[in-house]
């Protein structure tokens, strides 16, 4: 039970109570309010009961205060911008704003590749020299290949180094009083920028550049730019502890999955604390008021006229000239409290069927292929399904997220057909299954499930491992296609451990639904890929209907499987992925390959669909040249290698291969970082620089946003409860006393 959530729940309950009370008074249906009014009139006439009336008035006024009076929040004090850190300068009496970071994102879309530049402006408003550490999200598909540090007019270009070496270079520069910056990867979608020796009053800009292949789904292209992160839960078990059931008092015990219907399942293990837990849990800023800001500019050169162009969560203005679209935020700067997503679709008649992009680097040609499979291959109706829904009810889902998750799950339950089987699992720090084993989707079962889902509240830790284990262990029914639908914000730090489990799930397919303003995209995408399913994101209430609709189309139809490629004779192609993933309705096949010769002839794609075998040819000669394809290939190759490590490949060998690829293509990876050093020392010897961890903004609509304003909230509503209780007692007393008099008079 978290304090914040408890407080909030209680506060909500209090408000609900107030509102309920209010409406009951408003309806006038009950005799109670009328009598109350009459009682008040009588009391008015009878002066000797003035004291009594006063008590009533006080309690009413108190109620009124509860209904209307919430602490005022709008405040003119704006001397210090939020999102900044305050440091007490040496000898200075007052708190001063210290380091602050603002972000400007510039994305250039060309065809199906985006080149994104993230400009982090570190400003030191304090009187001391500063070092800063900033943990921030980037797209989980990003290939980070550029770093530039700007100080005034000077530009220092970063170099790729092996991770430890890069850190050494940075630390030496820091100690020598030189300006330096370092970009490291913590997770595929989580990075750290460190800056050293920022002079008082100085601004240092760190520019990080990455490439990304765009998503295509249901005839829409989309570019997603993560701007903040949902604080990750770090599970409890120490990596050093043996996975065998621990003994002795106080040792962590295994969770027991309890089914609502009774009978506990065998114990399952809790998650393990990842070794880098400290590095992935930066401080969170509430994001209320004047918080950390971001500006965004996107230019879209899709290669065709657009039928639609839409920013899903931010108001934007768009200008167009000759099929080149410029997108800018309507408000120049916005709080960095939600992900940015831009989607567009071609004009009618210009639907995308297939596309090839190539890049020549040295003797090699790199190719990026995309093919939208024929729709009729996925249009058929699939065999009966057995769906296990897992819903995350942990504390990080509190706020809008749990509401959206409930709505999504209720929609999904409504889509089940007679003959399908289902079950619901909810988890926080404990896992609960609605039924011991999947049950038929009968009216009674569905009603029961809908009610159960409607009553779910978010609170507690995020122990995903037991929930997934419970789902995978559940008895499979013959003749049914087993699907696991996982609704979560993915706010966990032990992703690797979960992926390893998902790898073992066998024939079942896993679909992830990422909830919230800033879900963990890396978890959603990779978990779905390993579970041979697909993923979707829901960020707002209005997304629920549409996005879930698209997901239903996918999970209710058969996937295209066994996809194979045939290359022209004489051409050797090294695919980045060792296995071509299955493709669901509305999705394209996307592949990157390294070719030994210039592209000629046709590549043949074949696979198994609803009507059996299908095949398509894509002409390679019509390929468009596009910068970045090589980097994307290398990035995908690295991802595949890291996946092989999960499958048990030799870790050292994988490390060697990843390191070589990353250094060759200048990519940031788990083993490589970008580092930039300005070689003139600037900080005078004898003066130290202070260190600060910069906060990220809490996602909008989450439990972290709003309530906590820099300093945590540190009051319980206990006193409020006591006073409400007293007021109610007083009220009851008045009521006991007054109607008796009324009766006497009538």
């Amino acid at each position, binding site marked *: 039970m978290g304090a914040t959530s408890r407080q909030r729940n209680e506060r909500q309950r209090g408000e609900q109570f107030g509102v309920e009370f209010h409406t009951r008074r408003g309806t006038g249906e009950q005799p109670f309010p009328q009598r109350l009014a009459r009682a008040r009139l009588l009391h008015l006439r009878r002066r000797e009961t003035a004291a009594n009336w006063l008590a009533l008035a006080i309690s009413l006024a108190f109620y009124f205060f509860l209904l209307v009076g919430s602490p005022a929040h709008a405040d003119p004090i704006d001397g210090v911008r939020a999102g900044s850190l305050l440091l007490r300068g040496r000898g200075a009496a007052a708190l001063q704003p210290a380091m602050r970071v603002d972000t400007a994102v510039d994305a250039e879309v060309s065809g199906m590749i985006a080149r994104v530049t993230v400009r982090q402006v570190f400003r030191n408003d304090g009187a001391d020299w500063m070092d800063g550490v900033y943990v921030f999200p980037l797209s989980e598909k990003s290939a980070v290949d550029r770093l530039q540090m700007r100080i005034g007019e000077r530009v220092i270009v970063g170099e790729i180094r092996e991770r430890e070496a890069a850190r050494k270079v940075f630390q030496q520069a820091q100690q020598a009083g030189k300006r330096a910056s370092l970009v490291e990867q913590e997770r595929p979608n989580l990075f750290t920028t460190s800056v050293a020796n920022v002079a008082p009053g100085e601004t240092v800009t760190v520019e990080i550049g990455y490439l990304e292949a765009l998503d295509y789904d249901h005839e829409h292209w989309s570019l997603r730019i993560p701007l903040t992160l949902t604080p990750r839960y770090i599970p409890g078990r120490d990596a050093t502890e043996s996975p065998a059931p621990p003994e002795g008092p106080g040792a962590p015990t295994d969770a027991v999955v309890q089914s609502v219907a009774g009978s506990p399942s065998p114990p399952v293990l809790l998650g393990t604390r990842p070794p880098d837990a400290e590095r992935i849990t*930066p401080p969170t800023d509430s994001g209320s008021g004047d918080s950390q800001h971001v500006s965004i500019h996107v230019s879209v050169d899709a290669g065709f006229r657009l039928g639609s162009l839409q920013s899903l969560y931010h108001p934007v203005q768009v200008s167009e000239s000759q099929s080149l679209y410029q997108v800018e935020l309507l408000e120049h700067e916005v709080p960095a409290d939600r992900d940015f997503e831009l989607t567009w679709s071609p004009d009618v008649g210009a639907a995308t069927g297939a596309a090839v992009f190539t890049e020549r680097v040295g003797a090699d040609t790199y190719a990026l292929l995309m093919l939208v499979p024929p729709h009729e291959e996925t249009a058929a109706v699939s065999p009966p399904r057995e769906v296990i829904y897992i819903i995350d009810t942990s504390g990080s889902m509190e706020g809008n997220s749990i509401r959206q998750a409930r709505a999504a799950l209720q929609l999904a339950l409504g889509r089940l057909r007679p003959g399908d089987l289902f079950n619901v699992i909810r988890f926080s720090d404990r896992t609960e299954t609605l039924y011991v084993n999947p049950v038929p989707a009968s009216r009674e079962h569905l009603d029961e499930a809908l009610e159960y889902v409607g009553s779910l509240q978010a609170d507690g830790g995020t122990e995903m491992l037991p929930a997934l284990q419970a789902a995978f262990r559940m008895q499979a029914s013959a003749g049914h296609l087993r699907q696991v639908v996982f609704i979560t914000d993915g706010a966990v730090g032990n992703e690797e451990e979960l992926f390893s489990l998902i790898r073992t799930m066998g024939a079942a397919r896993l679909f992830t639904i990422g909830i919230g303003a800033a879900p963990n995209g890396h978890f959603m995408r990779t978990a779905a890929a390993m579970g041979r399913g697909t993923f979707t994101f829901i960020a707002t209430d209005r997304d629920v209907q549409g996005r879930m609709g698209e997901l239903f189309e996918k999970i209710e139809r058969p996937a295209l499987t066994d996809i194979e490629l045939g290359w022209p004779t004489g051409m050797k192609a090294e695919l980045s992925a060792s296995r071509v993933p299955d493709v669901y309705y509305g999705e394209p096949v996307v592949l990157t390959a390294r070719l030994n010769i210039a592209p000629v002839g046709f590549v043949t794609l074949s696979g198994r669909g609803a009507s059996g075998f299908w095949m398509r040819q894509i002409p390679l000669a019509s390929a468009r040249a596009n910068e970045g394809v090589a980097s994307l290939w290398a990035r995908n190759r690295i991802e595949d290698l890291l996946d092989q490590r999960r499958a048990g490949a030799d870790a050292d060998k994988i490390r060697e291969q990843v390191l070589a690829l990353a250094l060759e293509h200048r990519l940031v990876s788990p083993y490589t970082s970008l580092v930039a050093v300005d070689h003139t020392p600037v900080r005078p010897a004898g003066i130290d620089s202070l260190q*600060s961890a910069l906060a990220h903004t809490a996602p909008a609509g989450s439990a972290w946003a709003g309530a906590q304003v820099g300093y945590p909230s540190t*009051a319980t509503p206990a*006193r409020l409860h006591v006073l409400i*209780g007293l007021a109610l007692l007083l009220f009851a007393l008045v009521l006991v006393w007054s109607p008796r008099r009324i009766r006497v008079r009538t």
Partner: protein
Amino acid sequence: MNARVLVLCGLLGTASWQFAHAGYIHAKAILAQRLLERSWQRSLDGVDAARPWPWADTWPVARLRMARLGVDEIVLAGSSGRTLAFGPAHVDGTALPGAPGLSIVAGHRDTHFEFLRQLAIGDELQVDRADGASVRYRVSDLAVLDARAQRMPLDAAADRLELVTCFPFDAVVPGGPLRYRVLAERVSLAEHALVAGRRRIAGEHGPESKVESFANEVM
């Protein structure tokens, strides 16, 4: 008449529900500290991040004592707010209590940190670290801050302890913007040695222990 009885019952029922809630908050605050004793012992025995219960998203990081007021509380990791119901919480991103640098600990104004209002400048606080060492702090400043305008400092230059709670202490509705801050400076090592007397402070001068702030570790 029946309606009146119903309404009365409703009122009395809701009233007791409200009292129960208030009681629950306080009971949890007191009981949790008892439960935490054991995991604190495990921390002292060298278990890293000893969780009081397996699914807890927090664990004890230090023990805060104040002899004059009879305060003895276990400080928990992470001020995500979820932990505050159980005990004072260490704010992420600041140094751990007793470690070099600035450490911030927050607590509820009506339970664990109610004692802050009675602290005066010059009072001594003792922090027991997980490695067994004790560190003394002396209260140097008392202030009321506006959380809307002021942010938490993360200053690694001075060894300070900041205790923060909501202000005013007697406000009824939670969620106000004001915070009461007690700033305490670490009593210097020489002085500390005198005060501590024969007490073993092995971890104090030895190699840097595992307690390190987020910033230190990353830099």
